[in-house]
């Protein structure tokens, strides 16, 4: 490689690393998680094997050997030569073990509490709760509610308890008792089969479409063109003001909107003078909520388009305007015939960039309506957030949330390719036909 190529690679390296760390790796992990049933209950790490009464009940209903289920359901503690030898090997006090053998040799106890009560009556017993429980553990033949790290440990404990299971019963038990996550395609079936998904999809389309058309492109054009025709000082001030929503901390920005729109806010106070009763202008109906969601996000989004369009308009050669003025063109004709055609590429860029940006943005909606009223402003990204990361019942479903996020990634990729195709991106970056 030449020195220039090395330098190029070096300069690219940080960007490549960041893209891999913050885009590729998360996307791949999302793709992986989407095929699992990871949730709060299964945990993210590997699970253990734990047999509970409900699992045994279910297995019995599915045809497991009744007697085996019966024995497995009992929490037995047995004092026999084997368990005493085990305890002695583990270093328990011989005097205590001797007394235990003498008083309870050969006995079985139904449940930990009964056994511990018996132990507490011995005079040579360990004199702390912890030591007592450690001693009791050696006599435990119970497998209920105990965590076994591997299937082998579970099987060994079952054999230890003297229970014989057929191979299929054993496999069923090992499978049913696993508490961790498993691979599954259920998430996709669930997503497709759910009514909510369709509603959320429609909400997302409404959100992206209206915000994009009305503000990110529409109002941005209005701002760019009007500030072009204003004196420089005024134009700068107006552009600076319209930048404020984007650079304000989101929480403060949305708080200002709440002060405007809520029952006890500015709008209610002003309209109250005209006899309109106070109401929550933001959350009253879903239409209200949508209006505010589009306004809140639009005010933020308009500034990017405004800047790009402004600089693009500035790049138009002035003689074109002078010539059109000489020809008697009105402002509107100038806009239609000179400015807009030159803004084709910037509009393309803003459309594709902002569509993808709007698809994934949800923080302003989270702060303002939180998907309400009802679930009428719940957009896809917000639904994924509520499913996987934050909801009232604490029931976080990482796997299903990843599925929702994966769909978003897929849509993003498809849309990007579509935009590049439709707007003929190749032509923009094609090599010039003039030789350099």
């Amino acid at each position, binding site marked *: 490689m030449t020195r220039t190529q090395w330098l190029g690679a070096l300069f690219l390296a940080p960007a490549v690393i960041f893209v891999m760390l913050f885009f590729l790796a998360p996307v791949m992990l999302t793709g992986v998680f989407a095929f699992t049933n990871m949730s709060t*209950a299964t945990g993210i790490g590997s699970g253990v094997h734990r047999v509970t009464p409900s699992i045994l009940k279910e297995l019995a209903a599915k045809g497991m050997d009744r007697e085996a289920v019966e024995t497995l359901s009992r929490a037995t503690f047995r004092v026999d030569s084997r368990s005493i030898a085990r305890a002695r090997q583990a270093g328990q006090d011989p005097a205590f073990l001797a007394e235990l053998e003498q008083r309870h040799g050969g006995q079985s106890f139904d449940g930990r509490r009964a056994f511990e009560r018996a132990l507490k009556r011995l005079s040579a017993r360990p004199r702390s709760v912890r030591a007592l429980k450690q001693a009791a553990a050696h006599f435990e033949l119970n497998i209920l509610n105990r965590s076994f790290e591997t299937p082998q440990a579970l099987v060994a404990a079952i054999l230890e308890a003297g229970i014989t299971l057929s191979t299929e019963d054993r496999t069923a038990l090992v499978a049913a008792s696993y508490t961790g996550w498993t691979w599954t395609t259920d998430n996709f079936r669930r997503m497709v089969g759910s009514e909510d998904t369709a509603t959320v999809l429609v909400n997302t389309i409404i959100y992206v479409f209206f915000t994009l058309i009305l503000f990110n492109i529409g109002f941005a054009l209005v701002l760019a063109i009007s500030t072009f025709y204003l004196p420089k000082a005024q134009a700068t001030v107006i552009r600076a003001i319209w930048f404020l929503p984007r650079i304000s901390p989101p929480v403060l920005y949305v708080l200002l909107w709440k002060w405007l729109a809520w029952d006890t806010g500015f709008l209610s106070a002003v309209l109250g003078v005209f006899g309109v009763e106070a109401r*929550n202008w933001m959350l009253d109906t879903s239409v209200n909520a949508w209006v505010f969601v589009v306004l809140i996000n639009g005010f933020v989004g308009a500034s990017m388009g405004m800047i790009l369009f402004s600089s693009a308009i500035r790049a138009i050669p002035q003689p074109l305007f002078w010539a059109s003025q000489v020809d008697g063109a009105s402002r509107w004709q100038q806009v239609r015939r000179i400015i807009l055609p030159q803004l084709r590429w910037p509009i393309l860029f803003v459309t594709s960039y902002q569509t993808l940006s709007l698809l994934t943005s949800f923080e302003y909606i989270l702060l303002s309506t*939180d998907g309400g009223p*009802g679930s009428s402003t719940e957009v896809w990204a917000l639904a994924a957030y509520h499913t996987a990361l934050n909801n*009232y019942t604490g029931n976080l479903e990482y796997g299903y949330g990843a599925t929702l996020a994966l769909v978003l990634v897929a849509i993003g990729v498809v849309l990007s390719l579509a935009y590049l195709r439709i707007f003929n991106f190749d032509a923009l970056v094609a090599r010039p036909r003039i030789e350099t």
Partner: protein
Amino acid sequence: MGHIGQTMQRLIGIATVAAGLAAAPSFAAEYAISVWAGGSNINDIYRVDAIEMAADILTREAAIRGKDIKITVDKKTYSGWADFKQAVTLAAESAKAPHIVVTGHEDIAPWAQAGIIRKIEDLVDMDAWPINDIFPNLIEISSFEGAVYGLPQDAEARPFFFWIPHLKEIGYSEAEIAALPDKVAKGEYTLYDVLEDAKNIQDKGLVAEGYGFYPRVSNGPDYWQFYQSFGGEMYDAARGKLVFDKAAMTKFYQFFVDAVAKGVTRKNHIGTDWGQWYSEVASGKAGLWHGGTWHYARYTGKEGLTDFFGNIQFTLIPAGEKGGRPNTITHPMVYLVTNRGSDDEAFIAAELVMIASEPRINTLHAIKSAHLGIAKSQMSIGLYSNDRWTSEATKRLLPYANAMPNHTGFGKYWTVMWNGLKAAWTGQKSAQQAANDAEAELKNTLGDAIVIR
């Protein structure tokens, strides 16, 4: 032998230093125990402070046994639930969960399966005091799959409240107001009577429109009470499955739709600010509402209501239809010991939890926050027995109280129920449509774990 050799001098030097070091006080063990509590506001501070008090007692007990230990307790409270549960769950995944967590009992099921929490019965002597004094049904609520995972931290019930002066204005006599709890308990006064009274109060101009019936403004166990009022059951213990009673759910949704249609409740009531809600109900701006036993502390404390019993009557949540089931839900909080740290730390944490559950310490929390006690002997502690609210609420509500089930799928069921209620209440869907959609969603997500009736 005259002088001491160099090696000998060095040895003497080292011995002196060692003796000096040995004389300095050192702790046999130092523990830094962290405790987080969710859904806790300023009145609930004893949830975490009790652990500190327990640490003091445990340190003294250890000193008597001849072991010097030092315990520092790191406390943190969250006022909401969503952020708290997210924090605990994600911290647990990276083994950084707090040692002790105070949360609602419904978290035991998923957290037990995920291995986030240890069983308290493995760490403490369940036959010892104060555990043997705790109400058995509370121990039952703190268990999952037959194993006791946590110790109850408090108990409560969720009553229905009436503003007495407004009731008097619409024609209730003193005797009728006093007889109201009984009427509700017998199923003679129903939820639709509630709407009637709310309408009358509103029509008389005593409260503003939409304030006649002023329910809770965010999700909570309270809403399951209305489902139960219409005959719904949450759980079939015999089969170990959740239960979706479609008729009851539809009627439950319809009740709130009717409340909005009647004009006694606002369509977008949910999402109102809690601070605003508390100050309004405690000052007579609402007619009828519902809440929890701990509201007593808030109304008489921060909201400055001086005569609680003269202004507020409380009953069970009325039945949906005559002869139906008036009820109340109790949502006990539990102390849980997590998988954080060594076994040593876990045993210490469990002992702290056990000491914090002693009647006297628990009573401090019970009375300060107006929750109910967990142990039988609390009834004879002066601070508790002399508190009028605690004794009346216990007598009137607890006998009829049941709790939500401990089931790993219950969180999903709750979310679906809440989404359906929101949709029907705000008018997005009809009550029937909302119930149908809830049924479909539950079949889709819970499958076998729920029984559809």
